């Protein structure tokens, strides 16, 4: 080793010294799930907006469903956070007495605002359906539909035209809000200068792009699965279009993820020496092998083939859900590698700790699975009230 060492520069492997308070990883599975869930929400909303705002007609079959998908996951987005807090009973302090310089204090406001916009958009888009279903229903369901119709059963041409204007407006403001919701989640990490793996202005962008990617993949997977399960006809043109968008967003996402590492490598500040030790050590398998090798490079080429070559429908419908599932795993791995990976490095810059999630702890694997299954159950319940697909009975309106 050179006799002249920069401030703090050492061979990490020699001393492997971790600050005594850095042994414990404070942000574990729950904080991995939080950006994952909000990412699915933001991405699904983008799919809906591609139809409602940008008039990508091919996406009509999933435009309604993706909003309900987003709602189901948004309902659960706070669960991992509340489970993580040492004092969840004080969570509302973040909204009532927020610290204006804290990125985290913005969450309550951004989340609530987005929730309201999403809910309003759903209610307006489904209003004709709700009115039709309300007429046929009785008992409890009738009461539910009358609440959801917000007291209006006016389906005149004039009323529907106004609805459409409101829907377009909500979808339009929903896009920047979805971007803020997830770009902001990226900033929660990107704004922490003490952590060289997190502290990059690219972090909000990477989080946002991976959100779009995971949302589109989630919609493709659930659309095809639900259609196959219910024996309905799959709209191949819709799947083809979704796959193209997935490929497009994934190109951007993957390129920026790689650019971020390459920039660190190229600039080679003293931060790179800790990052290098991390990527070649504790994160080698979860990052290079799993996230990049298996779940980025392989889906990248599958998506490219599906986008550029017109395969038979059967081949497209076979590979689309598989590649979507792989992308969903890729994004989950990315969350893991950022959230947990960033904490493995000790701020001593001389070593890394280890982290192995347990099954039965408060923030363990079992709770994580429950939190990920919950939105699916909520989606199923929503499906009992509002129809997922436009072609369903009672939804043929202007």
């Amino acid at each position, binding site marked *: 080793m050179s006799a002249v060492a920069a401030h703090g520069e050492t061979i990490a492997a020699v001393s492997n010294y971790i*600050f*005594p308070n*850095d042994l414990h990883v404070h942000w574990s599975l729950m904080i991995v799930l939080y950006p994952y869930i909000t990412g699915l929400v933001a991405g699904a909303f983008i799919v809906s907006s591609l139809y409602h705002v940008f008039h990508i007609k091919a996406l009509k079959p999933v435009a309604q469903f993706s909003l309900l998908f987003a709602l189901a996951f948004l309902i659960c987005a706070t669960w991992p956070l509340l489970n993580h*807090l*040492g004092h969840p009973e004080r969570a509302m*302090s973040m909204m009532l007495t927020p*610290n204006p310089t804290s990125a985290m204090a913005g969450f309550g406001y951004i989340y609530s605002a987005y929730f309201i916009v999403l809910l309003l958009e759903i209610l307006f888009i489904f209003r004709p359906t709700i009115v039709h279903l309300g007429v046929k229903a009785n008992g409890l369901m009738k009461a539910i539909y009358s609440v959801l119709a917000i007291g209006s059963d006016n389906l005149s041409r004039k009323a529907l035209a106004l609805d459409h204007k409101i829907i377009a407006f909500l979808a339009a403001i929903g896009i920047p809000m979805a971007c803020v919701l997830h770009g902001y989640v990226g900033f929660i990490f990107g704004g922490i200068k*003490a952590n060289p793996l997190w502290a990059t202005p690219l972090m909000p962008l990477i989080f946002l792009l991976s959100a779009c990617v995971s949302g589109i993949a989630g919609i493709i997977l659930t659309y095809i699965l639900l259609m196959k399960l219910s024996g309905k006809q799959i709209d191949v043109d819709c799947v083809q279009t979704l796959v193209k968008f997935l490929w497009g967003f994934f190109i951007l996402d993957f390129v920026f993820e790689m650019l971020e590492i390459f920039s660190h490598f190229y600039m080679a500040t003293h931060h790179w020496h800790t990052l290098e030790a991390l990527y070649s050590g504790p994160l080698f398998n979860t990052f290079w092998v799993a996230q990049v090798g298996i779940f980025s490079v392989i889906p990248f080429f599958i998506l490219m083939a599906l986008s550029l070559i017109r395969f038979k429908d059967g081949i497209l419908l076979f590979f689309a859900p598989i590649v979507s599932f792989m992308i969903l795993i890729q994004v989950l791995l990315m969350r893991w590698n950022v959230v947990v990976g960033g904490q493995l490095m000790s701020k001593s*810059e001389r070593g890394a700790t280890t982290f192995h999630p347990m099954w039965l702890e408060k923030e363990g694997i079992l709770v994580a699975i429950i939190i990920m299954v919950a939105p699916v159950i909520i989606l199923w319940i929503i499906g009992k009230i509002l129809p997922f697909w436009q072609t369903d009975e009672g939804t043929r309106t202007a």
Partner: protein
Amino acid sequence: MEDMKAIQNEIHNDRRGFLKKVLAGTIGGSLLMVYSASGQEIAEQIPGMREEDSVFTKKNFVFIVDITRCIGCGSCCVADKNEYNVPDGNYRTWVERYIIDDHDEVFVDSPNGGLDGYTKARTDIPHPVRDTFFVPKLCNMCEKPSCTQVCPVGATYKSEDGFVLVDAKRCVGCGYCIQACPYSVRFLHPVTRTASKCTWCYHRVRKGLLPACVSVCPVQARKFGDLNDKTSEVYKIMREPHIISVLKPGMGNEPQLHYLGLRREVV
């Protein structure tokens, strides 16, 4: 069991007398505790703190660690653990041991945060040792603290007199401050489930007493005082041409914890 029976008998025989004794003992004991804890018996350790016209917020406290003096005895860590009943595995302060061999390889360790003192030499150093020293660590009490910036509810805050403190009654236990601190001085207290860290013994300083670790250090490696007091030791040290630096100056946090004789190997 025998004792219990004796006490029960006594209560049975003379309930009124027993209660009188208990009451007298309780009041007497409490008075003794209040009297001894009033601080009046301990001489003022920070000049001017107990004067009636002393304006606390006008003081500019700094902490100086002289790493050329530290002998790694661990007394400071023991005093700290006793003062705050710090749970095992968490550290408000700790002492690191640096060893540099003649190949310029640096070896750092801090077993149990140095709480047990460095009584045994390391045997795993491959080459002859060229230099060795100890570095005590504690809250850097930053002028621009990252922890207060990120705290979503303002539970961690900077007092008017420059101390970065945690209000355990407001802390939501999110751990964001722990992520943001460049010096890893914070931890989540396993009992209160709130963030915790070194306070430079704010409760002692307000009473004119030095921080616990400073008062027990046998070699004066830890120094604490008011920079506005031109007769203070810290003022003299900061004015004289010593090698003085702070940890991770590039972070821009402007710590009020200064290191005398800081070495470039220290992070």
